[in-house]
């Protein structure tokens, strides 16, 4: 019997409570402060996320014995805890990066929405009940739609918000249909009880497989895996860049934690079936994402396609269907999140100084700002999977997991894709380091919040890459409670 309430459960959802309070607090500060001070909201918001991060580490750490809480609505475990930290970290960095975006100045609601969407992600990471899960996904998505369309005067941003909303609403409706089918067949909504009911074997695998596919549509949208990726390039391009950074990192990671948890927990009866679907999705995502990225001229679109490809690499970890595979997925996501945040930080700073997101305009960046060029070098090499950076170790573990599970063909497709990826990352670096431009003498100003964000991310990339032991331990611990 799952206890419905216990006072210790409050500690488990402490981060979420704090996030909600924090969202309200920001709105209040926004009302009270004079407009001249309001550009400090970025600092405040980042500070708030940092405090919540620390509090989470100190008080919300799951006990080994703890499991389902609040009547089975949530699960307080290592994967949830780990991902909460990832989301809070990404939210903090996003706030720092937003401090420079003029349209977010003096807009308390911008930061409040980030806090709310982070709250939704935290719930996604912990949900163990279909109803809770659906609520969490919507709590994440709706603020995200608004944020994507936040630049009201910018047509692209509005388009981005609308597109994101339409795709999101459509796929979540399909996912919800899948949820109702599962409930209809079993009478359960808790994903752990679902598994028991489904494993009884009374249900035809076809029906079960069908509902699994419907559910996968919603998750596939969240992680932007092919064939549910169509929204991402346009949304990434149009949204305010810090929000793009956030969508491409935290939101994707949130999609992954749900995907991993639900698939492993609810559908063990048809593992072979969904894992082959996911393997196909992984191959398609890597290949299509990388190939289309080759042709991109806009850096945000390039990163959009690259993020589709990265979803594919991460999926390999799940397809491996092993504890090490799940650990490699978690590790990969951590590496990817810090790396992509660093890449977007450079994009934001450059766009603010040069007013352009075209790759060709990055010419001469290494002369205009050697530091920024170096940060981009580190981020892109990490995305390409070069040591001693985080991306290398991430890819290494994912491919290792594939080889361990005798999926050597999948590892080969992965490494071939890594080569295609290297090509377009190098193409950008070539423009940055090799080509010259007329504005070479014009330096690029780097504001304090942005440089802090950049330094943190670059250090994290190098640290995770060169000393990956403790991080892997952590990922392995987290992965074990998924099985």
């Amino acid at each position: 019997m799952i206890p419905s309430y216990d006072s210790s459960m409050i500690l488990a959802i402490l981060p979420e409570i704090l996030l909600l309070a924090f969202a309200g607090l920001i709105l209040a500060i926004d009302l009270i402060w004079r407009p001249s001070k309001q550009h400090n909201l970025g600092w405040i918001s980042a500070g708030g996320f940092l405090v919540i991060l620390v509090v989470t580490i100190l008080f919300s750490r799951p006990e080994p014995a703890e499991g389902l809480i609040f009547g089975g609505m949530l699960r307080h475990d290592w994967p949830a805890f780990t991902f909460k930290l990832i989301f809070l970290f990404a939210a903090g960095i996003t706030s720092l990066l937003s401090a420079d975006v003029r349209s977010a100045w003096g807009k308390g609601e911008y930061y409040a929405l980030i806090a709310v969407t982070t709250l939704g992600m935290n719930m996604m990471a912990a949900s163990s009940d279909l109803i809770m899960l659906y609520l969490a996904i919507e709590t994440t998505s709706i603020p995200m739609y608004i944020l994507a369309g936040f630049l009201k005067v910018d047509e692209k941003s509005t388009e981005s918000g609308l597109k994101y909303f339409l795709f999101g609403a459509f796929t979540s409706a399909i996912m919800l249909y899948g949820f109702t089918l599962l409930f209809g067949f079993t009478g359960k909504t808790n994903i752990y009880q679902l598994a028991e009911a489904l494993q009884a074997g009374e249900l035809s695998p076809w029906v079960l497989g069908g509902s699994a596919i419907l559910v996968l549509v919603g998750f596939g949208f969240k992680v932007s895996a092919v064939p549910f990726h169509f929204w991402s390039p346009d949304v990434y391009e149009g949204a305010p860049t810090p929000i793009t950074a956030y969508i491409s990192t935290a939101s994707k990671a949130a999609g992954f934690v749900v995907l991993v948890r639900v698939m492993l927990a609810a559908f063990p009866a048809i593992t072979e079936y969904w894992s082959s679907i996911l393997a196909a999705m992984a191959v398609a995502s890597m290949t299509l994402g990388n190939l289309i990225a080759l042709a991109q001229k806009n850096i945000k679109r390039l990163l959009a396609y690259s993020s589709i490809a990265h979803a594919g690499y991460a999926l390999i970890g799940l397809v491996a269907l092993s504890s090490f595979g799940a650990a490699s997925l978690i590790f990969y996501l951590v590496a990817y999140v810090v790396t992509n945040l660093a890449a977007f930080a450079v994009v934001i700073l450059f766009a603010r100084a040069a007013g352009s997101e075209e790759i060709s305009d990055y010419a001469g960046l290494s002369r205009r700002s050697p530091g920024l060029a170096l940060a981009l070098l580190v981020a892109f090499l990490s995305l390409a999977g070069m040591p001693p950076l985080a991306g290398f170790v991430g890819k290494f573990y994912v491919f290792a997991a594939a080889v361990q599970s005798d999926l050597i063909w999948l590892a080969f497709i992965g490494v071939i894709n890594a080569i295609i990826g290297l090509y377009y990352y190098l193409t950008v670096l070539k423009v940055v380091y090799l080509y010259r431009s007329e504005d070479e003498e014009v330096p690029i100003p780097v504001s304090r919040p942005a440089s802090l964000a950049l330094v943190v991310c670059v250090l994290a990339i190098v640290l995770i890459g060169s000393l990956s032991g403790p991080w892997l331990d952590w990922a392995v611990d987290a992965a074990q409670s998924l099985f």
Partner: protein
Amino acid sequence: MDFPFLSVITFIPIVTGLLLLLLPAERKNAIRWVALSAASLALLFSVWVYFSYDTSLGGYQFEEQYTWIEQIGVSYHVGVDGMSLPLVLLTGIVMFTGVLISWGVDDRPREFFAFLFILATGVFGVFVALDLFMLFFFYEIAVFPMYLLIAIWGWKVTREYAAMKLTLYLFIGSVVALVGALAIYFTADMQSFDLLELEQAGLSTAFQRFWFPFVFFGFAVLGGIFPVHNWSPDGHVAAPTAVSMFHAGVLMKLGAFAALRVGIMLLPEGAQFWSPLILILATVNVVYGAFIASVQTDFKYVIGFSSVSHMGLVMLGFATLNRQGLTGAGIQMFSHGVMTALFFAVVGMVYDRAHTREIPKLGGFRKFMPLVAISFIIGGLVSMGMPGFSGFIAEFPIFLGLWQKAPIVAIIAVLGIVITAGYIMRVIRGVFFGEVPKEFEGHITPINTFDKVALYLLSGILILVGVYPAVIAPMIETGAISILRLVGGA
């Protein structure tokens, strides 16, 4: 605890590289001096280690081991044996002379030396690695900076193309080898990436035969084996002088060495099975490479293809899987590294002054730079395998070994040496002798002291090894013997 020599050698370059990035970019001379001191330090340490190695004991010495990633059994494990130690020394030499030769780099020297030094750390790391994961880790570090070094500082005409081609070739090779390495790790099922432990894994014959080509040829791409040698001449030519020296002198050895360490030593039965194929391909390397070199009119392309030809001899030595062949291959790696570094240094000095590398347009350079001419001739004699120079010490045992294994291959491969003599003489005559074209009269500046030091050092080593082979042969022989213990054909 003993002084961690190998770690110090490995990390001096990268630490210096990062420090350089912190210096202000305008202080170019300070940057050069910092780079030179770091390179000298690394060279001194490698010389010290080289002469402290006890050849009577053999095996791995100067070992250090620390846990790195405990979960999957990765440790930071370094050590050198008779095969790898000369290569560490070689890297030290090439790094030192490379910095000397690059004194004239004026476009962002800070970044140039930083990237060059990151590369050097990768190279040292691979040569001293005794852990499979670590070997990969450093291998990739060594491959990547090459791209920037060639693309930014290279020859304007082909640098973008050549840099991309090189990087993609090498990356493809290394990731294919990576999958093979992972297969070895999981099949051995020892929860360890340690090379010494994996050597004892007792992998099945079928497994070894299946995976050997992936691992061996994956790495051998960087060793320039036919038919995936194509990146190398283009890369050599497009690279700036110091990078060409590094590239042909050290990086190609990196590929050959990793193919030996991972391919042959971990999968010895696979090596036995596939050695005929390696023999054939490497013979093509030797003969075909020499042929192509002999029809080039561009000075640097001649040397570029000669590297392909000479690396073929290294691969031939490996494929013999006997004592003479392996010893010869080891000496050849060292000798070719020094020789080709010397060649590229000379090409760079000529090109910087003549602004052309077309052999028909050059001539009479011995008048302007006699020392350069003499050095090139010494390198040429090494290249032809003339007794008294290091090339002979290397090639003679290779052919001895080859004769035992497959006499017909030995006969064909010797052709390569003959052709080599032909094109080397042609270059010497075309560039250093004959009439001085009118446009060069009075425009050729002499080389500076840094260049001279580099040339003296490189040609001195070639002669030293040639007249006193005991300085290197016994050491490499201990390495060859320990490889043969694994292959089982001693």
